[in-house]
């Protein structure tokens, strides 16, 4: 029994050392360390794996339904001290719509909704960004969806900069409110353009971006 206990000590130490080493490695490479000082106007490329596009729409006139688009791509330049010089351009494939139900996703891709064959992407390109207060801004731009390009306005929150896998990163969130009827997506919408139909007219799109510096 004693021999077994003694033999187990180095094994446990090795495991403990390994675990501590891994934890240290995690802290240095995986966990982003947020830096509060303002970043310079750097160019960033969107990390599709750590960025999210989530949308919300009324269902049956009462419930809030959430879906997402996977694989956001794009790039931006932004300096919180000089926001007006910032530029943003994003794109996501309509094919990548994900609502947690494959049948519904197929339906959303087809001619009834996104018509993903004819309109393979949803694109956003900024036209201006203005400071509101703190780290909040108003981002204006053109949203292209379902063959229509419309000016939209996003509430933009700059989350700051940090490092991830020894690379500088930046992060922000933006919330855009649109009416899908503005983009000629009117199927299953109430005739009066309200949210009372099978599917609502107002859609909230939330974009959460993590982007390594280029």
């Amino acid at each position, binding site marked *: 029994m004693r021999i077994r206990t003694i033999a187990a000590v180095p094994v446990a130490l090795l495991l403990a050392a390994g675990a501590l080493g891994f934890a240290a490695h995690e802290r240095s490479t995986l966990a982003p360390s947020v830096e509060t000082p303002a970043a310079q106007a750097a160019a960033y490329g969107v990390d599709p794996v750590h960025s999210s596009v989530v949308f919300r729409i009324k269902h049956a006139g009462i419930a809030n339904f959430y879906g997402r688009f996977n694989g956001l791509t794009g790039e931006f330049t932004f300096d919180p001290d000089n926001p007006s010089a910032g530029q943003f351009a994003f794109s996501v494939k309509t094919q990548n719509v994900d609502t947690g139900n494959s049948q519904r996703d197929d339906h959303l891709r087809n001619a009834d909704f996104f018509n993903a064959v004819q309109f393979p992407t949803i694109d956003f390109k900024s036209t201006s960004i203005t400071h509101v207060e703190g780290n909040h801004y108003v981002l204006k731009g053109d949203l292209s969806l379902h063959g229509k390009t419309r000016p939209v306005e996003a509430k933009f929150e700059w989350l700051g900069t940090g490092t991830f896998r020894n690379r500088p990163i930046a992060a922000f969130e933006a919330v855009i409110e649109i009416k899908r009827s503005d983009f000629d997506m*009117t199927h299953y919408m109430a005739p009066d353009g309200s949210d009372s139909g099978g599917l609502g007219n107002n859609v909230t799109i939330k974009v959460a971006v993590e982007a390594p510096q280029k």
Partner: protein
Amino acid sequence: MSTRDLLFTTVFPGLITGVGLLAAWLLWQVIFRPAPSDARPRGPLWAAPVVFTLAFLVAYYGFNTKPQLWPTSSAMRFHTTAAAGGAIGVLTSLVTLVPARFRWAGHLVRHPLTLALGAFITLALLAPLTPHALSAARVALIAAACAAWLAPATAALDAVAHRQQGWRMPVVLLPVAAAFIPVCYFGAYATGAQFSACLFALLCAALIVGLICPRLSLEHGGVVFVLAALLSLGLLAQFLNPNSRTWPLIVLALAPFAAAVSLLPMLAGRKGLAPFLAAAVPVVVVAGAAALWAFLGRPDADPYAY
């Protein structure tokens, strides 16, 4: 489906078709007073495509509260293709009014018009898919194939419609429109299923008018419109919907030709219901096979269970 949907997509189009066809027929009878011995259908041939187009546009409004003349999304160009189908239907029916000695010129006009309609529908719906989804060469090939399908299908059904007047011709066409409903429905193309249901309602109304007006004819204009509407539905179902399967649609495309069985000499010369049954039964069989195929191809009975 809400009450409004039901009204705009089925009830109103059906009423427009029924009342419109009946009014046009009665007006024609009062103005022209055809001789009882005249075997040739003397109904207002142009009325069917005009009335069908109007009814279809009401249905389009029911599905889309912001209808546009030329929407960016080719999937929403229903009313453009329906209007084109109606216009070509009117033109082809007017050709029948050409005096007999110039009838050859009429044929020269009618068939190229039908070919042009098939090509127009294809290009309106599929050309925007170039270059990322379909090459220009492929779209051109599909346009040629659609034109080549529409012309003989129209010719075959026109010949059948010439013999099957009144309620009979709507009955021959009904199975095709009916079969499109499950083909689109089980392909998760809800709008296609709804438009097929609308077309079904139009033909039901024409059937009722046909019971009142035994010499109502869908020859030329009416047939052209119905086939053009089905062609546009088939194209959208096939090329814009990931769940669509080709085989049921191909089988359905053969249905109009099945009616041509009634044109065989041994059947065409017979009187009574035999030629009608020879036209209707093969269409029911072929369209039914397409509908069954579409149903069996889906593992879930309800493709909208979400």
